[in-house]
């Protein structure tokens, strides 16, 4: 079944990093999960061409872009559905479903339940940050009762779903939990999930740095986390705490936290990942009343859905032969839906002949409801973004409020694209400038020629400057700025790309100015000096 892998050069973390720019907010827990996935996969050893990531919609669902494997960024909540089809079509694949508390438990709650109860061979990773991040801060199905969010200004009135309990209710054969801030634990848990045949459900407590940054503070704080987390190991006593001095005991059906000083070790629960009642108890232990149970909560073996299904199909084919889909289509009752014209004709005929027809009503344009523009939340969010939590200095405002036009850009010297190099260089020296903008017949910006171009491509290379045109040595189609963009944009281009000069253009791409490193630094220096 598996090919390659053993004979090939071992994969490394880098092999799983795609060329896509990661677009999560800085500080987002998704970065940590991505890094651990990229670390765990080479150790898991499944070849890239047999690995697939399927996601729904949400911040976490951008995951497939960043993995250098096969991937599908699918429909909201439907990742388990697509993944089920894929697992049946190609049972050799290692399929990871990436979802979140909203995508997995609200929009796709039903799909999640049925993928789990079918025990499809999938690894379902649910990032739980207890908030809708991508849609900017509404409460999610796992938000705590009373949580104040953008959509629950007076507190959430609903009971949160417990993802582990949901998975248990769907008869999950593998249930585990980890947290983004504990990389080693996370990587180990992902590997254990990968080893499971059937649906492996992993809940990861994940930090949304923008909309719910304090949700997991007690569990992620390196100083205190060992007092807040119960690390589970099959066959081991449930002992936890920084000093390993606390344990979990059952009092009737109720778990309780006890001090090891007060009880015998024999009274402390021993973890048994095959016990369903124990898994339910562990899943129901909610922080801060109990330590949060982390690790593999349940791990049992049940038939894998794809294998069962394929076996049934095989049996049916042996008994009754291979089916014909076309015949199946044509076997049942068929009817035709007519256009209005056909219906009118048919009605006329009907009046004449008494023949039945099916009518299809078309929506009138006037019946469409007028759409109200909704802007409130976006504006509120943008306001939030514009206010950094801690302002370091006046720069932060200045960089985004002042536009490049405030730099009082110099009037650019422009050259026709047909100008000779000799003439271009004479012009630059006459004006004592380091760059000229090159324009076409209609005065549109087509290139930039700088001292760098002269040094790197012309001097010592070109013998007769008069015989060469600037168009052949310039940098064509340079990035240009509009004057109303913030200074931060100029800084971005200069720092990311190392551009020393930036042309300014109007809406018709006519050059209207040029700014340099020195203009930007000089401006920031002067304007702040004056204050």
């Amino acid at each position, binding site marked *: 079944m598996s090919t390659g892998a053993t004979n090939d050069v071992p994969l490394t973390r880098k092999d799983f990093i795609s060329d896509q720019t990661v677009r999560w907010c800085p500080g987002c827990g998704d970065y940590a999960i991505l890094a651990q996935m990229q670390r765990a996969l080479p150790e898991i050893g499944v070849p890239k061409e047999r690995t697939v990531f399927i996601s729904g919609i949400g911040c976490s669902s951008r995951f497939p872009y960043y993995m250098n494997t096969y991937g599908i960024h699918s429909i909201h909540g439907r990742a388990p559905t697509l993944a089920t089809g894929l697992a049946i079509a190609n049972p050799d694949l290692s399929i990871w479903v990436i979802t979140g508390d909203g995508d997995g438990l609200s929009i796709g709650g039903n799909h999640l339940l049925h993928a789990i109860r079918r025990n499809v061979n999938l690894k379902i990773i649910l990032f739980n940050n207890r908030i809708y991040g991508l849609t900017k801060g509404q409460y999610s199905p796992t938000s705590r009762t009373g949580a104040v969010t953008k959509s629950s200004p007076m507190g959430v009135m609903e009971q949160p779903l417990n993802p582990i309990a949901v998975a248990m209710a769907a008869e999950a054969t593998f249930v585990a939990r980890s947290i983004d801030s504990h990389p080693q634990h996370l990587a180990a848990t992902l590997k254990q999930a990968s080893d499971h045949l059937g649906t492996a459900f992993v809940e990861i407590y994940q930090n949304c740095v923008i909309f719910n940054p304090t949700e997991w503070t007690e569990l992620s704080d390196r100083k205190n986390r060992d007092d807040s987390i119960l690390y589970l190991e099959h066959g081991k006593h449930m002992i936890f705490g920084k000093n390993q001095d606390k344990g979990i005991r059952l009092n009737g059906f109720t778990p309780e936290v006890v001090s090891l000083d007060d009880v015998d070790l024999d009274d402390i629960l021993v973890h048994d990942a095959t016990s369903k009642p124990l898994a339910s108890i562990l899943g129901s232990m909610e922080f801060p009343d109990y330590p949060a149970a982390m690790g593999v909560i349940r791990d049992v073996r049940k038939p894998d859905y794809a294998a069962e299904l394929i076996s049934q199909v095989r049996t049916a084919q042996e008994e009754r032969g291979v089916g014909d889909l076309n015949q199946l289509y044509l076997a049942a009752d068929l009817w035709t839906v007519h256009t209005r014209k056909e219906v009118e004709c048919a009605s006329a005929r009907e009046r004449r002949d008494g023949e039945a027809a099916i009518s299809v009503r078309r929506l009138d344009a006037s019946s469409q409801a007028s759409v109200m523009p909704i802007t409130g939340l*976006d504006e509120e969010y943008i306001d939030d973004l514009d206010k950094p939590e801690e302002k370091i*200095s006046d*720069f932060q405002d200045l960089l985004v409020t002042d536009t490049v036009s405030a730099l009082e850009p110099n009037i650019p010297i422009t050259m026709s694209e047909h100008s000779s190099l000799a003439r271009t260089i004479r012009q630059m020296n006459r004006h004592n400038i*380091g760059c000229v903008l090159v324009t076409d017949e209609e005065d549109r910006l087509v290139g930039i020629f700088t001292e760098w171009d002269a040094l790197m491509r012309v001097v010592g290379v070109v013998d007769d400057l008069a015989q060469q045109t600037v168009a052949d040595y310039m940098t064509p189609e340079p990035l240009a700025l509009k004057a109303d963009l913030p200074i931060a944009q100029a800084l*971005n281009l200069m720092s990311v790309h190392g551009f020393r000069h930036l042309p300014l253009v109007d809406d018709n791409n006519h050059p209207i100015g040029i700014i340099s490193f020195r203009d930007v*630094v000089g401006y920031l220096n002067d304007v702040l000096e004056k*204050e």
Partner: protein
Amino acid sequence: MSLQTELKSERVSHLAVSGFSRVSVGTSIRNTLAQMQADGQVVCLVTDDKQVGPPSETAQLVGIFTERDVMRKVIDVPGMLDKPVDEVMTPHPITVGPDASAADALRLMDENHFRNLPIVDTSGRLLGNMTHQAIIQYLADRYPVEVLNRPSDPERFPHKAEGG
């Protein structure tokens, strides 16, 4: 907090200062340019050691030759390529030590209209070349949310914030 205040607490060696090419005094302009083109550097420091290859520990900085010199004295002047770089370099450039504050270095550059400021330690070792680019880079790193976390292509600037 002004730019000056902010840069006062940073030493020039804390900045991402640029690299440079290096040739020995007496090198032809042709070879100097070839060195700069190979290195992709717009600044060449000229030292007084005679040997080819890495500079000796005792090599002293005697001049600086930049892209501006190329434009004004070399590119369209016939017969320059075989002359020694000494004839067109700026001799005995002003330098700063690695512990100089970035603010002082910047002021020195602005007052003298320098585009480059070589950084040299007390034993004369060449450490880097301070430019305005180093300041730009510093500001970008210091304010990543404002500067770095925006799309480089201004035409594709998203007018709404997006999380994912």
